[in-house]
């Protein structure tokens, strides 16, 4: 299938990629850029494991086509830690036990980061609302709520 050249920023770096028009953003990132931190749990927009931040907004990357991010700014889970230092949300997930199998975790952390970018001191209700698009089957969410509240406090 003929490919199309797109230019975008991925985790702060300008990148050119030749993409097939049928590729999703998730597929391009995982298979072509070989950033395998974002996960595919459903491919239909229902689980949030593939969450990324595009131009500052949280998206489910399995539902976006790669061609749609031409000229845009994409942040994946790989873009959060800086110089080997974990982002406060990442650290909080470890510290509170918000990580179990880890498969929802990259998406969950992107959703939590996006929530905290918008609402730096959320209430429990706001946390529950903000993460409603991300499924976790392992934790029952209790320790994830704690992680996000914790990260919010650490950010103050």
């Amino acid at each position, binding site marked *: *299938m003929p490919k199309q050249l797109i230019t975008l920023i991925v985790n702060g770096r300008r990148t050119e990629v030749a993409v*097939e028009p*049928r590729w999703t953003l998730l597929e391009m990132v*995982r298979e072509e850029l*070989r*950033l*395998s*931190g*974002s*996960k*595919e*749990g*459903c*491919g*239909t927009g*229902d*689980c949030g*494991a593939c969450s990324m931040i595009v131009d500052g907004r949280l998206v489910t990357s399995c539902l976006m086509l790669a061609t749609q991010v031409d000229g845009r700014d994409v942040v*994946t*889970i*790989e873009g*959060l*830690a800086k110089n080997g230092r*974990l982002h406060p949300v*990442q*650290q909080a*997930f*470890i*510290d509170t*036990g918000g*990580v*179990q*199998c*880890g*498969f*929802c*975790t*990259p998406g969950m*952390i992107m959703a939590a980061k996006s929530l905290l970018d918008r609402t730096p001191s959320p209430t*429990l209700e706001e*946390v*529950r*609302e903000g*993460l*409603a698009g*991300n*499924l*976790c*089957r*392992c*934790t*029952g*969410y*209790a*320790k*994830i*709520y*704690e992680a996000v509240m914790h990260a919010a406090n650490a950010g103050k």
Partner: protein
Amino acid sequence: MAQETEVREEEMQREYRNVGKPVTRIEGAGKVTGETIYADDMQLPRMLHAKVLGSPYAHARIKSIDGSAARQHPGVEAVFTPADLPEYKKNFSNRRGVIFPDEEVLFYGQPVAAVLASDPHVAEEALALIKVEYEALPPVVDPITAMEESSPLVRSPLGDVDRSEERGHVTVGVEQEEAEGKPSNIASQMNFKRGDVEAGFEQADVVVEHTWRSAVVHQSYIEPHSTVADYDASGELSVWTSTQAPFYIRDELSQTLGLPENKIRVTATEVGGGFGGKIYLQELMVAALAMAVRRPVKYIMSRKEDMLAATPAPQAVIDLKTSMTRDGKLTALKSRVVYDSGAFPGAPMLPGCLLVGGYYKCENLDIQGYEVLTNKVSVGALRAPGAHNVTFAIESHMDMMARELGLDPIEVRLKNAVEEGDPLPSGQPYPRIGLKQCLEAIAESEVWGRRNRERGTGNRGVGLAVGGWLGGLQPASAIVCLNSDGTINVTVGSADITGTNTSFAQITAEVLNVPLEMVNVTTGDTRTAPYAGMSAGSKTTYTVGRAVKLAAEDARQQMLEIAAKRFEAAPKELEMADGVVRLNGSDEKTLTFQRLGRLSTNFAAPFPAVVGRGAITTRKMAPGFTAQAAEVEVDTDTGEVTVLGFAVAQDAGFAINPLSVEGQMQGGASQGLGIALSEEMMYDSEGRLLNGNLLDYRMPTTRDLPPIEAIIVEVPSEEGPYGARIVGEPSIVAGAAAVGNAIADAIGVHLTDAPFTPERVLRALGKL
């Protein structure tokens, strides 16, 4: 090997430095950064992607399959119909003995053919070009109908049924009767009898009789089934797969493909959720295809395929009759327990029959179990398989009887609760257990504290239920090595699905009396690791943890012996702390672990390497019990049930890592709440799944779940490390019953069918 130490009273009271402390997961950083490699993240040179064609019928005969057009599709490397598969030992009586059916398709979505291509899109396109001619046969979808003599048969008769996988989840010495004689849809049955139930009903002041139904539910791990396999020129098969059971897969592949076990390397990649559902499924197909094409093959189930053709947890229909005297004594229990096994045997009838009569002392029992075949996907384990279905029944009954007699639900349960020495329905006595302690703990929870306060305010109610799980038993082993710099490596063969490797680090650090950071733990593959049973049946810490403790004690002994020789002293005159061995009270006679490491690894070193070995087997169960309380609000106009609060008390024996024990309790409880509120795989009359996606199959989201309160109870087990007992599974068991009892507290009616959807609530209220 060091002498195994029993859990002694002094040991329980000693101050521990590592075990019993909340510790974050050793693999946490990899997971939060996305660096952890799951099976789908693997890329091998020349790797092909497999896509699978599923049957559009729940029951049919394949008249012909033609893959020629698919083979012509540009980019396709190979097409496999049943006729193209390499030789393997087929067994059509077991799901894991069939790659594609030769003739008879038994459930909707059953794989019938596959395509390989280096581009997954190409493989997908080619599936549409495979021509299959089916002759549709009548599907049997409902298990109760299937039991009727007049029912059409679900399938050709069963032959050699293998129940090894189920035994990994629950290990008790009871056999079920395999069906024989006249062909029927009943795959197996069993009966437990004690006393005289009719006499028991006579003595009672209240008799309650109902039928309880629960739905087919899916494990819904977020990572679908994922496998990569390769077969190389030297005849070695490598399989990287998301599994809880690497050694089990190795053994099965060896028997089915005819390869020796030492030529098979199964690596359990990080498991993105298993919950009993990731034991052994598509690995056989992927391995066979890789052997056929001599190239690496990757197969990742789509979510839809996973819902259609993995192994969800069964629906069950429980008829239950129980009776009680005025003072709250349970006098008789009679039950017919029917599990829908789907198209192959493997339903958890045995644990269901044991647990329906296993929570309370009862002199008169009659429990009849049936495992029934239908043309639905065959079932597997989901966290304490079969337990939630029967718990829903018995725990609703306990509430109903208490209510009719005007007794307190906790008092009634405490009065009848089983204790050490009481028999299971099979007659086997319980070892030490903590059911009563869990009830006492839940009575103190915040949620239960609101029971009387919330009464009569709007449509709020608070209810509780108990649950339990017996656990699996399998041998286990471990190796603990001293490195030349004094750090410690632990190697085990168990897949880490719940944080067990972190607990093993704690155990090793405890025995060697060092900071946790000095220990690292690896799960090896089946060619490098010492044997461990499957990570199922909640037994990993209980069994492998004990082997790790022994291996660490063995390593400790070897290190002390080296030091003893150096100091010309006896090992018992030495002490070990913080990475240093010293002669009692001496400041000069010390040897660091690093020095010990060098003395046992360097060129011409005077001592052999320190390699501690631990291997155990156990036949003693360490059952885990739980008591759970729910607070709900019922909207009587819409029928919607909102969970306002939920608490879980669970006996962990000894929580080696309270942080992960709490996580297991909260996670399992959330799955129990899904079973209670919304999870149900829905099939039409033709056996087609109607909601094979994560939007229409509703597992709990953050909107549904308040923070779950976890209360750890510790009644030490007899054989577990530091008294630890099984932990992973009990937490799922009581959710449906607890919520059902809370709903009854709110609106005065018990719902008999789970999940409690708005429609069922309105029906119960007589509004539909």
